[in-house]
């Protein structure tokens, strides 16, 4: 598919932006304006974490921060806070990328889930401290659990459809080095 690593790198970065914008677009469709009693998963977050743990170079910090800031602005969330937390979480995962690369998927899933829980707690605590109106706890929990549940699906889809897999020994990575 891609002989030139740099070409593939930029294709995948653009693909990440396209996927993010598509997800925002799907969320914005005015399909039901009644308050919902359920909350779907945050697929964009799962996608970001899955890619960070597979090919960190496809999701550079600047791009990630930009996408989540856009989502914050579009979804009428407090701007910046969620983006900052996601960025910190993604960088923590990225730092553990080398260690997690050789372990099983279960370990990866657990570490992603714990990261999700931590940023959710920090988010709610900060909003409470600064006395910002926030979503009902039940809905947030539901979204958290749904995101955890959907994570393996996102991983499988990004591996099969978009070809974002972990580097095997001997592969050439995007920067042209051999792992």
């Amino acid at each position, binding site marked *: 598919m891609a002989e030139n690593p740099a070409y593939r790198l930029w294709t995948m970065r653009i693909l990440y932006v396209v996927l993010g914008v598509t997800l925002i677009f799907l969320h914005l469709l005015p399909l039901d*304006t009644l308050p919902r009693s359920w909350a779907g998963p945050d697929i964009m977050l799962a996608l970001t974490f899955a890619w960070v743990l597979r090919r960190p170079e496809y999701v550079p910090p600047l791009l990630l921060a930009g996408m989540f800031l856009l989502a914050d602005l579009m979804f009428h969330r407090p*701007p910046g806070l969620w983006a900052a937390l996601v960025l910190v979480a993604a960088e923590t995962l990225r730092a553990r990328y080398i260690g997690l690369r050789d372990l099983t998927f279960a370990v990866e899933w657990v570490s992603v889930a714990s990261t999700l829980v931590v940023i959710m707690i920090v988010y709610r605590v900060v909003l409470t401290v600064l006395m910002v109106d926030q979503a009902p706890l039940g809905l947030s929990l539901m979204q958290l659990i749904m995101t955890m549940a959907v994570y393996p699906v996102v991983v499988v889809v990004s591996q099969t459809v978009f070809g974002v897999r972990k580097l095997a020994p001997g592969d050439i990575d995007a920067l042209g080095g051999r792992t």
Partner: protein
Amino acid sequence: MARNRAQTTDYTGPLKRMLIGVLVLVLIGLFLLWRIDSPRVERFRAQVIDRVVPGFDWAMAPVTGAVNILQDFQSYQRIYQQNQELRRELQQMKAWKEAALQLEQENARLLDLNNVQLDPRLTFVTGVVLADSGSPFRQSVLINVGARDGIVDGWAAMDGLGLVGRISGVGDNTARVILLTDTSSRIPVTIQPSGQQALVIGDNTAAPPIDFIEAADQVRPGDRVMTSGDGEVFPAGLLIGQVAEDPGGRMRVRLAADYERLEFLRVLRNYGHERVTDPGNLIAPEGLPGSEVGDAETTAEGADG
């Protein structure tokens, strides 16, 4: 090769970490700025949305239409039954229409007898709903009219029948309407016929609760809830819905507006009311003919006292 790689990561590491640190600081700074000076950041948000959402518009209409058709398709299965129901309802509606027409005529006659002046400036701009808030946690919609059409923050948005929400955030071509069901929505209301004052507080459910009722025992399910105009939030007398009691015994509003299908919204132009600021002159205005007599009287009274 491996050593080379290690070295390059050593060189880029600190730089990268600094970039990430700066990014996080900028984002948190933006959040704090939003917390301190909300209107400015909200204006920025409105501008961003103004750029992005109309760009989506060409794709949104067909996709929304297709999904709605799919949803409607399910109801075709019981189309006969529905038809019968509709016929029955139509029959009832005809009776109501007759009653409404008579009442309207009577109302017009009475208004004429009393020489009542309706506020001529209460006109509206109609907009199409472009997008919803995109998350289950916030209840708002974007409409395709904005500052270009003279929309101002705080105006009321209605569908044909009842109040839907309040303009909050105006871009050039778009405006955001915070719905009554949003957790940040608080609307001062009057409950008729008892005339009780209360607040309708959004809580992310389809029927927002009514709180701070003065005498709760005078409010019955089925009473009409209208805006009261207190706090100059909205013009007075816009219909919101009917009082209903939930299983927990709490008073809620069943909203008159059809929240399932918000397609067109009317934004009411409202330039506020003139206020009476000078209570002293009400007794004897200076500009009126005969004001000198009034002055003389008051001085005479003062002397008497």
